[in-house]
């Protein structure tokens, strides 16, 4: 598995896409910090970009990479290599290369501008961790979709639809159901609903690191008292981990059974 991972990663790192993606983050990071030296505010802007944009890139890039390397996969399958190693190795390579772009692209500007304050480092780390989690989650889902659909157009549409569902439609349904059941106590329900959506979950985790959380009044305080504690944080992180583990294990299962 490690060998496949290594080859795929070096292949990805040589591709111009990775550099393009990296330079996008570098530009964004430097640009943000240049125009807005208040690091705390830059974190908010970055949050929007990372949560929405990097998950989109992850899902699109993941599915593209699978379809493009289909012949390579078939070639590998002819060799005496364990099937799950091939898929997991490739999956890891894509996720790691995307995460590297994110970490370097955003990390370097922040280091250059000096994130010395311990408090800021914490915020920054949560931001990066959320970004890396989202990369792993969305690439895993993309690989799942790709394995189920031979038709590239269909696979691509499903991947985009999944992303759209998580960023927009889920929140829409969430909001509508909150409005519908507004007569009932909804704090717990909305907490649970957040746990099912990795994008919402990372957004909340990052927001709680910022001062803004204190400004959200009574209900904001309730959410803070859940996610702000170590227990809540652990729950959130384990939910994000589940979002990685479940698709990856399915990837393994499906990869072993799939007829090429």
């Amino acid at each position, binding site marked *: 598995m490690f060998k496949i991972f290594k080859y795929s990663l070096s292949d990805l790192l040589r591709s111009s896409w990775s550099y393009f993606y990296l330079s996008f983050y570098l530009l964004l990071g430097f640009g943000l910090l240049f125009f807005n030296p208040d690091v705390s505010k830059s974190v*908010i802007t970055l*949050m*929007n970009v990372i949560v*929405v944009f990097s998950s989109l890139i992850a899902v699109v890039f993941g599915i593209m990479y699978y379809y493009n390397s289909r012949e390579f996969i078939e070639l590998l399958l002819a060799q005496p290599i364990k099937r799950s190693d091939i898929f997991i190795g490739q999956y890891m390579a894509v996720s790691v290369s995307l995460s590297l772009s994110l970490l370097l692209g955003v990390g370097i500007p922040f280091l250059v501008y000096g994130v010395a304050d311990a408090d800021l480092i914490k915020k920054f780390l949560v931001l990066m961790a959320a970004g890396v989690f989202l990369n792993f989650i969305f690439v895993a889902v993309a690989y799942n979709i790709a394995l189920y659909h031979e038709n590239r157009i269909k696979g691509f549409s499903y991947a985009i639809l999944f992303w759209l569902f998580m*960023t*927009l*439609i*889920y*929140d*829409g349904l*969430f*909001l509508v159901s*909150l*409005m519908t059941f*507004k007569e009932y106590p*909804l*704090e717990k*329900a*909305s*907490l649970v609903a*957040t746990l099912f959506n990795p994008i*919402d979950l990372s*957004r*909340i985790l990052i*927001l709680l690191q910022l*001062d*803004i959380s*204190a*400004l*959200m*009044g*009574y*209900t*904001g*305080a309730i*959410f803070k008292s859940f996610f702000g504690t170590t227990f809540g944080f652990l729950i959130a992180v384990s939910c994000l981990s589940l979002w990685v583990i479940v698709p990856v294990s399915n990837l393994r299962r499906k990869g072993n059974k799939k007829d090429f």
Partner: protein
Amino acid sequence: MLQTIAGILIFLVQLNLSAQNIRVCNDCEIKTLQAGIAYAQPGDTIWIEKGIYKEHEIVINKPLTLIGKDFPVIDGEMIGEIIRIESDSVTIDGLFIKNVGTSYTSDFAAIRIKRSKHFLIQNIKLETLFFGIYLEKSDNGIVRNNYIKGNAKVEYQSGNGIHLWHCKNVQVLNNKIYNVRDGIYFEFVYNSLVQGNVSKHNLRYGLHFMFSNDDEYKGNFFEDNGAGVAVMFSKNIKIENNTFKKNKGAASYGLLLKEINDATILNNIFQENTIGTYLEGCNRITYANNNLLQNGWALKMMGACFENKFIHNNFIGNTFDVSYSGGNTSDNRFDYNYWSEYTGYDLDKDGIGDVPFRPVKLFSYITTKVPESIILIRSSFVDLVNFSEKVSPVFTPEHVFDSFPSMNKF
């Protein structure tokens, strides 16, 4: 007739001449304040030398001036009230008073002024207190330059820094108040001035007043108070040049206005509060030239607010600029404000945006209806609905808009 006048004059001269200075110190003839007060004649001045005086229930029942040298310590030993003034024209200056007793049945204070006039309380340091300076049915006095530092932990076991009840023409100037229950508390106080005070880290309110008309609050600084500043049921008040900062929490307000009529609120700064200004049942308020920066809700208007004017304010970087509920109260006016969220244009370059600004976002309308929906803040979906609502308002109140949004900060 002449004789009487001459008699009075002579009496006055004698009175004046007879005004004497009394020294109180640990190794003087007079060792306690109580003894000094008992010995003194009306109009005398008592000088208190540096030292520690373990006394409580000091009653001042004649016009006296008490002056401490280098802050002599009056230690109440946590027993009860420390100084009670029951006479007109009393001055207290430069004492360090500590250890006021705690009681659940009577409000023990470091200094209580009871039914007196023309008092002056200045340069007092207070520590470990229940109530600090307590004015009760007292008029025409000044409380200034005092430093009050409490150690309030829970509301029911703590008192207020400066507490006024049924007073007129009192000036509360340049006091510094920390860690008590309510920094400054007014109830039935008229024609008074609160200026240059600093009230921070208090358990409940930085400033709290009720049923107090014709008062002015100028240049005060309120920061990190449990519930911010709350003013209720008052008329004709002026709130100017104050700073309300970092009052964060579930029930925390920069400035809470309830049933306030005919007030002017000018040149204040509201920064990083959960709710900058909250209005409920307020009428004819002029709210102008204020800076509202980085608040959760800059302005939250609830029901029964009529004929209020919001002019020339800066709304910068607030999560919600205006949240509005309470039906079709259409006569509140927002004009000529600067909104950092404004995205309109100014073709004729007159500094006024050509498109009206609607400060109530759909999401702020939704969070008023369903508070739990706040968990979706900054979600892309919310940005989307806000945008579509901005383009064609359906839910947000149609009459709440700024027809002349300023393009530049004031």
